[in-house]
């Protein structure tokens, strides 16, 4: 048989790649590179933060450059190993992915700085910073990939890294929390894999843009509804939506506070992002069919989360329920699917990443100052430091969605979008959840901050380190900034939502020939 050179020009990228396209792969690839170096230098405790914090700052820079590039030129795609999609794995960043990646980078940088005081030598030896960078590789990869199996792989990367972070220190309660977290999250990613297996069986491709094209072409006779429902279940579990959220309050209060902050900001948001991407880009019609279910789950999530926050006396467990309550608002936005609702959900997700990180870090400082996380015992924080008390109050207002802070505007958008289609009960649930959250956090402020320190109450360490104060102040300032000047971010979030609703630009960036 004669050897015939096959013509591969149709399957390969032949033109040189513009340097700007590199920003799509740089965030995860850079994190892996820096993480591997830090893992090699595990024993060099002093060197770890000196290398990790600049590495995280560079990550933020790459994310910001990617965001600027996407904002100007629309979605960017880079394929791995020169193989054109659908053969090669594509990394595609649109506005939503770039926004989430940028916010994630900021959170990681803040966590890296805060960890200077929160993670002692023991934790550093077990590798906090290497795991943080691997976690960020998983998170950025999940936000930027354009291939659904690759998305699964990044989910697993961030899951493995989060296991490492969760058991940092190996306390008894950490192992208890880790058991529940690990098993339930593993089942969630397995559900994701099951759905992806079916998806591959149906379409024979894993590239999301390709699937979107094929699904739009032959929708009638394909069992897409089953798939969409499976994906909603899998991502709902990752995002801690109501009936499948019990792993979150069982585990989020057990690790070091900075690890809790990173988890609260990043992991559930990855689930929400994946749900947005898959439901909006791949299954838009099925999402409409399922919208009532998602909306009901969202309403239940936000109300029960707020009620859970009201019932807790431990500050860290209270915050875990506040994370859940915020997820409900994002689910409501996803269920609405309109530019207003989805834009509100994206804005709210960014707000939640910033504010929940700030809150967990502030809770860490509060616990250190008061000597306890228990609201029954804490008190006198305002007397200790009026500045810290003020910053905390700003974050409390922001998480309760009160003006003039960042949580207010996205909720307005989602409530308005809900009222526009007549879903008054959804709007009422959002307002009720906000009201309950306000009570919960008002009580925290009253008891732990405003109440004078009693005689029998334990006193903790008196000083607040600058590396703890800096990220809290920065995030409180961001929350105020986006509350006072919401217009630019609002416009960007809405344009990101429009990009999700009509993925033509996304698909064109992967397949330039398709109109």
């Amino acid at each position, binding site marked *: 048989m004669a050897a015939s050179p096959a013509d591969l020009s149709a399957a390969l*990228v032949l033109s*040189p*790649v513009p*340097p700007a*396209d*590199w920003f799509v*792969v740089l965030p995860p*690839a850079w994190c*892996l*590179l820096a*993480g*591997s*170096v*830090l*893992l*090699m230098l*595990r024993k060099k405790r002093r060197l770890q933060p000196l290398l990790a914090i600049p590495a995280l700052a560079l990550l933020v820079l790459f994310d910001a450059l990617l965001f600027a590039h996407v904002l100007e030129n629309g979605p960017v795609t*880079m*394929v*791995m*190993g*020169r193989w054109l999609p659908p053969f090669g794995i594509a*990394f595609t960043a649109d506005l939503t992915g770039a926004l989430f990646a940028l916010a994630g980078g900021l959170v990681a940088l803040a966590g890296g700085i805060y960890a200077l005081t929160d993670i002692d030598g023991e934790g550093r030896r*077990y590798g906090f910073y*290497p795991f943080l960078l691997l976690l960020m590789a998983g998170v950025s990869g999940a936000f930027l990939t354009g291939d659904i199996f690759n998305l699964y792989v990044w989910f697993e990367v961030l899951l493995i890294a989060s*296991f*490492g972070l969760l*058991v940092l220190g*190996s306390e008894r309660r950490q192992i208890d929390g880790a058991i529940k977290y690990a098993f339930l999250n593993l089942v969630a990613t397995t559900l994701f894999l099951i759905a992806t297996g079916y998806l591959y069986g149906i379409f024979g491709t894993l590239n999301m843009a390709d699937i979107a094209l094929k699904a739009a072409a032959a929708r009638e006779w394909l069992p897409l509804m089953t798939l969409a429902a499976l994906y909603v279940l899998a991502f709902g579990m990752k995002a801690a939506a109501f009936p499948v959220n019990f792993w979150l309050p069982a585990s989020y209060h057990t690790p070091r506070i900075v690890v809790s902050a990173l988890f609260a900001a990043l992991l559930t948001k990855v689930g929400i992002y994946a749900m947005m991407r898959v439901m909006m880009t791949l299954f838009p019609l099925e999402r409409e069919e399922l919208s009532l279910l998602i909306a009901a789950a969202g309403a239940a999530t936000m109300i029960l989360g707020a009620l859970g926050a009201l019932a807790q006396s431990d500050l860290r467990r209270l915050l875990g329920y506040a994370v859940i309550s915020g997820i409900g608002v994002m689910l409501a936005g996803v269920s609405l699917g309109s530019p207003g609702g989805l834009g509100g959900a994206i804005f709210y997700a960014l707000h939640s990443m910033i504010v929940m990180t700030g809150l967990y870090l502030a809770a860490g400082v509060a616990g250190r100052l008061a000597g306890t996380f228990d609201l029954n015992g804490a008190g006198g924080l305002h007397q200790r430091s009026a500045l810290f008390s003020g910053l905390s109050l700003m974050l409390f207002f922001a998480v309760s969605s009160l003006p003039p802070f960042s949580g207010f505007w996205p909720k307005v958008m989602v409530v308005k979008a809900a009222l526009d289609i007549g879903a008054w009960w959804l709007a009422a649930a959002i307002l009720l959840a906000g009201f309950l959250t306000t009570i919960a956090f008002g009580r925290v402020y009253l008891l732990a901050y405003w109440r004078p320190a009693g005689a029998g109450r334990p006193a903790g360490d008196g000083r607040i380190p600058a590396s703890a104060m800096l990220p809290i102040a920065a995030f409180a300032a961001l929350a105020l900034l986006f509350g006072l000047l919401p217009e630019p971010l609002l416009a960007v979030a809405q344009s990101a939502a429009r990009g999700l609703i009509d993925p033509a630009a996304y698909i064109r960036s992967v397949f330039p020939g398709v109109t």
Partner: protein
Amino acid sequence: MNSLILRTVAPFLTALMLLFSVFVLLRGHNEPGGGFIGGLIAASALAIYGIANGVSAVRKALWFHPMSISAFGLFLACVAGFLSMAFAVPFMTGLWVYPVVLGVEVALSTVMLFDIGVYLVVVGAIISIALAMEGREGEGP
């Protein structure tokens, strides 16, 4: 395990299997083989050594901590991807050079570098899990 036969044979067997694992790794580009399976063979070679002579002997023989070996593999794999940045081709594109060493043309590529990285990641990860389960001084999960 306290068996004279195993303890006598283990060093030879380990050496042979390590050699074979490198052969499988280098064969991997055009024939069945590669970094993953090569790494598994190397890890089982070290596991046999560990069963015969104990965990601390393996740690001493490895010199580097297994996690560091894994990390170095990850580093190599990343470098293999980043090299394509200099040539204006997409991430992870295979790049080849053919230097002539002692009159023999040697084909070197970023693909091979990546595969060596995979090999080291697999060896390091599997050995660190095996040692953690086998020995009591394991560092936990």
